[in-house]
């Protein structure tokens, strides 16, 4: 009966029961700091920064909570579907009576957390375009000053100083010493890059670190370093670890050098090479001007050799020859014309001669003309008896009178 139960001393409240279970589980060392392997599902980040998810395998699942402070210590991004090994403690939420795991640390299963963090960060920044070729700034030919972000001790800074000054005797190096590994190292590196940009007192930055384990180099995989390099208006050369080591900083940098010495080689030209280069330009200039002048000279000579300059009288001579020729032709034409005229004249005068009455007269004929009228008398019809006439002979004339007329007067 209900009343019986109520009065029974064994009856406990829900609160008491749940709290008892909670204490019981929490005091069991086997359930505290236990390593559990499983797949993350339903991963969600709350607004206050705590993380909730379910850890499961094929047959079972358990709710998990990871406080913001724990989450901050994990380098990689946990996500749904990821197999992880967690170190956790079992607890119970009194309000719901549900059992939870409070996550104390987390590692990806199979691959190290840092490696996963590296892959994740790389994928994230690549997607954002931080590695894009189009953002890479050119390395200046002749940097006035080079900023170096590295440890102030050790071989790296010595190598950079040695190689730089050996190549370029007047090298100007400004060093911002930083911790290249450990707590706060990434922040120091990022700050150094930002500082150079703030004061804008160098025109190239080298970020360098010697070789080390993946964990040692990890500061250079941190997002804050990548962001500072990407934001830098000053070109950045990275030289982290050995030639085979690639860090996120290397991907974002404008240029990756395999070693710190190589970075110095990229940064500084060989002084003597530049002097030589300028000298060869100087020579080329003189040679080119000489060439240019000799081309002009050849052009001038070519023009000067043109016949009109060489034999300026040619034109006059040519013209005068033409005139001469014209005159010759004119003369020939004149002579021809004259001869033709002469021939015509002689022919005509022969004819004229043949027809001349004087020749007839010479043969003994006479010409009768009416003395009064002066007209020639060609027929008896024109004659009258007693008419005074003049008879023209070859050597003079005779006046006569007509005594008798015979004939018909009909002409022929």
């Amino acid at each position: 009966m209900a009343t019986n139960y109520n009065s029974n001393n064994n009856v406990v409240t829900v609160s008491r029961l749940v709290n008892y279970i909670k204490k019981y589980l929490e005091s069991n060392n086997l359930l505290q700091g236990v390593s559990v392997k499983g797949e993350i599902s339903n991963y969600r980040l709350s607004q206050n920064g705590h993380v909730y998810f379910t850890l499961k395998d094929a047959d079972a699942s358990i709710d998990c909570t990871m406080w913001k402070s724990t989450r901050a210590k994990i380098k990689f991004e946990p996500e749904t579907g990821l197999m992880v090994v967690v170190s956790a403690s079992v607890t119970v939420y009194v309000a719901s009576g549900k059992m939870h795991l409070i996550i104390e640390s987390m590692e990806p299963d199979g691959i190290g957390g840092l490696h996963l963090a590296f892959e994740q960060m790389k994928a994230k920044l690549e997607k954002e375009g931080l590695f894009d070729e189009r953002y890479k700034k050119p390395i200046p030919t002749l940097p006035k000053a080079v900023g170096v972000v590295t440890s102030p001790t050790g071989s790296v800074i010595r190598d950079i100083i040695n190689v730089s000054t050996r190549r370029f005797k007047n090298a100007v190096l400004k060093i911002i010493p930083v911790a290249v590994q450990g707590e706060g190292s990434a922040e120091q590196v990022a700050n150094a890059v930002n500082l150079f940009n703030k004061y804008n007192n160098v025109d190239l930055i080298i970020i360098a670190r010697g070789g080390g384990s993946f964990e040692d180099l990890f500061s250079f995989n941190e997002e804050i370093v990548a962001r500072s390099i990407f934001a830098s208006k000053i070109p950045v050369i990275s030289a982290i670890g050995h030639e085979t080591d690639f860090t996120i900083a290397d991907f974002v940098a404008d240029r990756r050098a395999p070693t710190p010495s190589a970075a110095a080689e990229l940064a500084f030209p060989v002084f003597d090479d530049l002097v030589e280069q300028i000298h060869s330009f100087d020579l080329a200039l003189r040679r080119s001007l000489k060439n240019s002048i000799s081309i002009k000279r050849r052009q001038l000579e070519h023009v000067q050799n043109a016949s009109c300059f060489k034999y300026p009288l040619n034109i006059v001579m040519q013209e005068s020859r033409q005139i001469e020729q014209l005159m010759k032709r004119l003369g020939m034409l004149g002579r021809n014309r004259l001869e033709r005229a002469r021939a015509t004249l002689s022919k005509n005068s022969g004819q004229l001669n043949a027809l001349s009455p004087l020749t007839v007269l010479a043969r003994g004929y006479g010409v009768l003309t009416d003395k009064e009228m002066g007209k020639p008398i060609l027929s008896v019809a024109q004659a009258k008896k007693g008419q005074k006439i003049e008879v023209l002979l070859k050597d003079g004339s005779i006046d006569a009178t007509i005594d008798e007329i015979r004939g018909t007067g009909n002409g022929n």
Partner: protein
Amino acid sequence: MATKETKKTYEEAMKRLEEIVEKLDSGEFTLDESMDLFKEGVELTKFCNEKLNDYEKTITKLVEKQGELVEEPFDE
């Protein structure tokens, strides 16, 4: 800013020098133009030489103290 300008000018000077030599080599310019190009080129080589020798070897350590940049000699 001044640093940047100087750097730019050196590279530009070298680029311009290359251009000038090429132009002069082409022989496509009048004599006056060629002379001008030559003079400009000689000025540029002088300028580059000066730039090269303008630097003075310094190796310093930078620290920002109370918002001010302090530059001290770097001891190896």
